[in-house]
């Protein structure tokens, strides 16, 4: 079948694959009914990033699905629909009942599940889980997530002494992920990982922060990309030194994820311009302002 369902906590994702013609269209409604009922859901995201075209028969099926979620006081929205799909919807006069957005976040704002100026927990939660997994598996350190918050430009920097940074790019947004450690915590990580004590940041361990950011993004992608984010990662970099600064790439809200460990607190920052409709080219992973820098 050219589609599959992926239920989320607050909505159902219907992912379309390849050319969606009449084949298998009759299986959409029974599948949707089952998932909507099981999860007590009323919102449907139709993920089109892997779909080349949708024929009239399949569009009518989506219209039936729209009617069903409308009866539940819910909504349906397509995301990542290409020009061909958008044209087909218009040609069939269905553009008022099958709206499309450029990103999943756009659809969630449309559903009222995310406020346009708030960060999207569905986007941020995978980074929380990924950070905890990477620290546990690679650094043998349990990290407890604290409450995330949005950093305003006027807020003081929360940075530690060493940061790993990696750029991320997707069809509809760009961004940056940074992980920053106080040197005391970073030395504990290095000591755990290398099995020998470190009392200062040396060239041997300095690029570890960048590699951790790379792993965290890789793990988060594993959850986010099936939802349609289509994130690709750039090459990580590393900056360190007292009062070093990170110039984030993306220009959107900066979400700070604090983590507590027995060796101290560290922070992960995620910034993305996910509300922006047009993709911007990823020129560089980030542009750090550095007392010290390692590629």
């Amino acid at each position, binding site marked *: 079948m050219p589609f599959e369902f992926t239920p989320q906590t607050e909505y159902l994702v219907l992912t379309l694959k390849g050319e969606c013609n009449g084949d298998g269209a009759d299986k959409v409604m029974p599948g949707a009914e089952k998932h909507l009922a099981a999860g007590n859901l009323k919102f449907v995201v139709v993920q089109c990033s892997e779909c080349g075209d949708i024929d009239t028969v399949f569009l009518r099926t989506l219209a039936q699905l729209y009617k069903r979620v409308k009866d539940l006081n819910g909504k349906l929205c397509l995301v990542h629909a290409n020009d061909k799909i958008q044209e087909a919807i218009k040609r069939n006069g269905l553009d008022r009942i099958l709206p499309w957005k450029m990103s999943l976040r756009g659809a969630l704002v449309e559903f009222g599940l995310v406020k346009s100026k708030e960060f999207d927990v569905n986007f941020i939660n995978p980074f929380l889980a990924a950070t905890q997994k990477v620290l546990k598996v*690679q650094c043998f350190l349990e990290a407890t997530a604290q409450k995330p918050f949005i950093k305003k430009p006027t807020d003081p920097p929360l940075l530690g002494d060493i940061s790993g940074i990696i750029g991320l790019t997707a069809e509809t947004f760009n961004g940056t992920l940074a992980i920053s450690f106080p040197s005391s915590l970073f030395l504990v990580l290095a000591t755990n990982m290398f*099995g020998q004590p470190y009392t200062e940041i040396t060239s041997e*361990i*300095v*690029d570890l922060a960048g*590699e951790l950011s790379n792993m965290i993004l*890789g793990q988060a992608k594993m959850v986010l990309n099936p939802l349609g984010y289509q994130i690709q*990662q750039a090459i990580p970099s590393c900056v360190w030194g007292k009062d070093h600064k990170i110039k984030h790439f993306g220009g959107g809200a900066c979400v700070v994820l604090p983590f507590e460990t027995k060796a101290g607190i560290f922070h992960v920052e995620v910034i993305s311009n996910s509300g922006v409709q047009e993709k911007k080219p990823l020129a560089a992973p980030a542009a750090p302002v550095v007392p010290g820098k390692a590629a």
Partner: protein
Amino acid sequence: MLETTTRILVVDDSLSLRKIMSVMIRGAGYQDVIEAANGEKAWEVLTQSDRPVGLIVCDWMMPVCTGLEFLKKVRADTKYKDLPFFMLTAETDDDRKVEALAAGATEYLSKPFSADVLRDKVAGLGSLAKAA
């Protein structure tokens, strides 16, 4: 299981990760570990090694010559066509895994992974050899 005297080549542009991999491998009982910072250097080390290399553990994303390019070069030489080659990457896309295995990687490991996972993969090499 490989002989514990087997020489293992670790390839990663990250000095810290090369060191971590070496620590993991030595911890699994293999003391003869040599390192290279990219695929180009790794080819030099591989072909000029005074002892034969019995396993390559290689990162994918590296400057100069990527892990995939290095893997293809290794497999193109009949002398190394059966040399075990573990591809490592922080990339989690299934397409990457398929690409690496199609190019001749023996195993594909997504970072992060524990020393136990690596040890099991190395132990699995013995099973593969027996099965073949």
